[in-house]
């Protein structure tokens, strides 16, 4: 999966979870700057990401998620052959 495909899939998951069909996300955007984002939404997003990409995120990885670009990079790492 390319980074662009991951970004598109993640955007769709964020839109669905936040019920914001027109949401636009930039890599540098802080997650708590996203309208409607809160700690409860973050849990639901993590669950959706784990299910959609068939990955399991560790505490350290979750705690490092601060910006939308971090989410993309994390999934990309897991998706690459040497990923986690």
């Amino acid at each position: 999966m390319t980074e662009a495909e991951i970004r598109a899939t993640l955007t769709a998951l964020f839109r669905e979870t936040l019920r914001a069909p027109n949401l636009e996300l930039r890599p540098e955007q802080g997650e708590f700057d996203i309208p409607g984002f809160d700690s409860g939404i973050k849990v639901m997003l993590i669950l959706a990401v784990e299910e959609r990409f068939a990955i399991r995120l560790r505490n350290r990885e979750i705690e490092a998620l601060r910006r939308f670009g971090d989410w993309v990079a994390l999934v990309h790492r897991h998706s690459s052959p040497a990923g986690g």
Partner: protein
Amino acid sequence: MNDRPSWRHRLQAVGLPVRLASDAIRQSGLLDAAWFRTQALDAAASRESPHAPAAALFESFQSLGSNCEFGLVQRHFGCETLDLFRFATTPLRGLIPFLKIEADPFIAGDALEIVAADWGEYLVSLKSYGFVFHSGLKTDAMPPEKVRDQQQRRLRFLWRKFGEDLEEANRIFIYKSGLWMTQPRVAELAALLRRRGPNHLLWVTPEEPGWPAGTVKMVSPGLMRGTIDRLNTDPAGCSFDMWQEVCRLAHRLRSERPS
């Protein structure tokens, strides 16, 4: 005119228990609407808090519940952690046996009871341990039949994360109580935390003679006691500055005496 069926009718229609948070719960202040009222501030608090530099300090602490006060303190300082008990009522009589189990307590279908609180929020009760968790879900925001599944997934994830936190032993766990709680009982809790890793527990109580507010001492290996001027679950009444001072001292004390 609003002709939507009330949450009460919708819950009854799908056979979920319909119950208000008991007067005893509300009057005790253990779990009330304060958290729910401030939920909308979640993102805003993190983004706009003038105390953001303190967020890193508060991220190194994890509430074991008791009630929601410490979760609200974290929010005040712009800290949003994903912790199992951050917004939960957890009596010590349930927490001690809970820490002894290894199997996922949320996996059984009938483990959770969904309760509609009279302030318009679904609460989730883990009956066998006497725990009550905020869901953050308004009773008119989601069909009640979906609440159980969603909350079960959420709590199972947070349980998994809690286990990792215990094994990593990077964060300081916090439990607060009134002065009626005895140190041996809290020491039992601290010992259980240390079965999984070299964890530290910060036990926070109101001040008393010999323990003025703002005091933090290591009272036994892995157990610190700290005192603040008042305990409160209403954001308007939380002793934010004192919580910050106690956490700062505890963080330093653990650094000086790490295990």
